[in-house]
């Protein structure tokens, strides 16, 4: 009964068209996130592409305009959810800058331990996914148990794993337990061997090198012009790192190098991230040694003495009048936030994560803008993949480490 079928009407010119249009996404297993690419293909070569983002846009900037400071921390979790602690602490440090709070050294070092663990967790996901996209599944499964260990450390400190909501303005909600330090030691002892094996699997692997070298490359000038930051910019050969250029959280006390690449291609991005994991390990080791040097009362310090912004302990809230008052005032947003405009940025796992916070003295921000590195460098994807093979474009996407949460905010 063919004649009864409705025939599909094709758009004008589509029969003569020499290229194929392919919708890659919004939910495609190879995109590792919700975003769409409309590709114009000549055979397997990409002629042009157009990106559509915003599928998981949650209006964070609008929401933040009616939330007191602590209610904004869980929002920041959901930006780059592979390394939420960096976002949380970036936000708390922004508040501290506005409120003029000095944190004790021990707090800074504890924060650095957590932030560098988060960086490792983020990079190992990104790099092992690059492996998966080139057909090597082993590495991914192998390093995953160490991400699990990192998550257990978070859990020991704040009670949650992925969207951590870790810390407070001024420090941490509680001191690190012995279990947290034991797990940290386990990680520091075992992870170097694992990372070495992971590198052995990839770095000089013929197939991997053929797939990643020379694909998705970008020059240093273009990368800068496109606003690249983080590992993606460093892979192109520019040693810009917020931790070094604008040290925050006592990063100036640490000795580390910035790994850089030269061609900005997928292989260089992979290598830079691997290099950064080694540097992060070294930073954590240094920080852990510094933390152990604190003795007596100093070893119990885990927050700054700022009762007007730091949530008191729950048991004190139930038993002490003053703690109850502060708790109430902080939760209800009754504590005064000074007027001011502050921009603070931290080196997120993907690059410069900035917070532009305008306060008019009210209980909530007047305006809060997040500079999300992912959103800014993803616009280069079209240029990166022009003329590339479709399968290379997939690797380019994963080696850029696009995180939909950060992209859409």
């Amino acid at each position: 009964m063919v004649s009864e079928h409705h025939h599909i009407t094709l758009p004008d010119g589509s029969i003569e068209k020499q290229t194929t249009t392919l919708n890659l996404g919004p939910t495609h297993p190879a995109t590792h996130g919700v975003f769409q690419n409309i590709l114009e293909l000549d055979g397997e070569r990409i002629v042009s592409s157009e990106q559509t983002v915003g599928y998981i846009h949650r209006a964070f900037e609008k929401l933040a305009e009616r939330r007191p400071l602590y209610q904004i921390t869980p929002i920041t979790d959901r930006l780059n959810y592979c390394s939420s602690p960096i976002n949380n602490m970036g936000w708390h440090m922004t508040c501290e800058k506005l409120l003029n709070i000095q944190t004790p050294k021990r707090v800074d070092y504890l924060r650095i331990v957590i932030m560098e663990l988060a960086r490792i967790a983020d990079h190992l996901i990104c790099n092992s996914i690059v492996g998966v996209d080139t057909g090597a599944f082993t590495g991914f499964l192998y390093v995953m148990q160490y991400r699990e260990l990192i998550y257990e450390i978070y859990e020991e400190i704040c009670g949650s794993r992925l969207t951590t909501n870790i810390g407070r303005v001024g420090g941490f909600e509680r001191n690190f337990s012995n279990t947290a330090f034991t797990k940290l030691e386990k990680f520091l002892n075992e992870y170097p061997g694992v990372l070495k094996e992971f590198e052995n699997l990839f770095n000089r692997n013929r197939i991997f090198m053929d797939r990643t070298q020379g694909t998705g490359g970008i020059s240093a000038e273009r990368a800068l012009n496109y606003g690249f930051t983080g590992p993606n910019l460093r892979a192109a050969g520019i040693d810009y790192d917020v931790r070094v250029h604008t040290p925050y959280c006592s990063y100036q006390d640490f000795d580390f190098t910035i790994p850089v690449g030269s061609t900005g291609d997928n292989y260089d991005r992979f290598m830079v991230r691997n290099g950064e994991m080694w540097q992060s390990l070294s930073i954590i080791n240094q920080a852990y040694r510094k933390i152990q040097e604190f003795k007596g009362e100093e070893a119990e310090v885990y927050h700054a003495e700022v009762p007007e912004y730091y949530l008191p302990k729950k048991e004190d809230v139930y038993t002490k009048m003053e703690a109850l008052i502060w708790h109430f005032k902080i939760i209800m947003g009754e504590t005064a936030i000074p007027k001011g405009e502050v921009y603070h940025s931290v080196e997120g796992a993907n690059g410069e994560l900035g917070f532009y916070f305008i306060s008019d003295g009210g209980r909530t921000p007047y305006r809060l803008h997040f500079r999300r590195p992912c959103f800014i460098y993803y616009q280069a994807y079209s240029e990166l993949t022009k003329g590339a093979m479709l399968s290379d474009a997939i690797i380019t996407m994963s080696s850029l480490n696009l995180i939909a949460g950060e992209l859409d905010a």
Partner: protein
Amino acid sequence: MTLTNERIQQKLTEKFGESVSGFNEPFGLLSFEAPKEMNLKVLQFLFDDAELKFQFLTDICAVHYPDDKGRELAVVYHLHNLVNNVRLRFKVFTDIQKPDVFTATQLFSSANWMERETYDFYGVNFVGHPNLKRILNVDEMDYFPLRKEFPLEDQTRIDKDDEMFGRGGSVI
């Protein structure tokens, strides 16, 4: 030679005279404004000048001040000189009835999506932008949601049936 905020301010006033104004340094970050017609001239000067070299665009965003008549929308540029490691903040203000501001896409490729985002949320019309359309919101949206005239839902409202969300039955 280190590039100080005073030196930047001096160079800008030499070049633009009275047009650049409102210099201040909140938290050490040099901040100033210029008339919106001059935004490209200022950005270009900051980019090209051999001493200033503000060649990295960190961020563009907008702010809405509904009570400031004729200057309701501020477009805020954060720029970075990576050689001397100096940042600055540059603002232009525009009337909300005619929110036309020149695009910076010719100077910075990164401005493309940043300006689209700013347009999407505040309706700033970036004149000369190659593809000025919504980016995070749906194309059909006919308002600019981050403007202050759109308040978030009143949390104390009682006319809503929250039964399906586990917050008791209807109140009225």
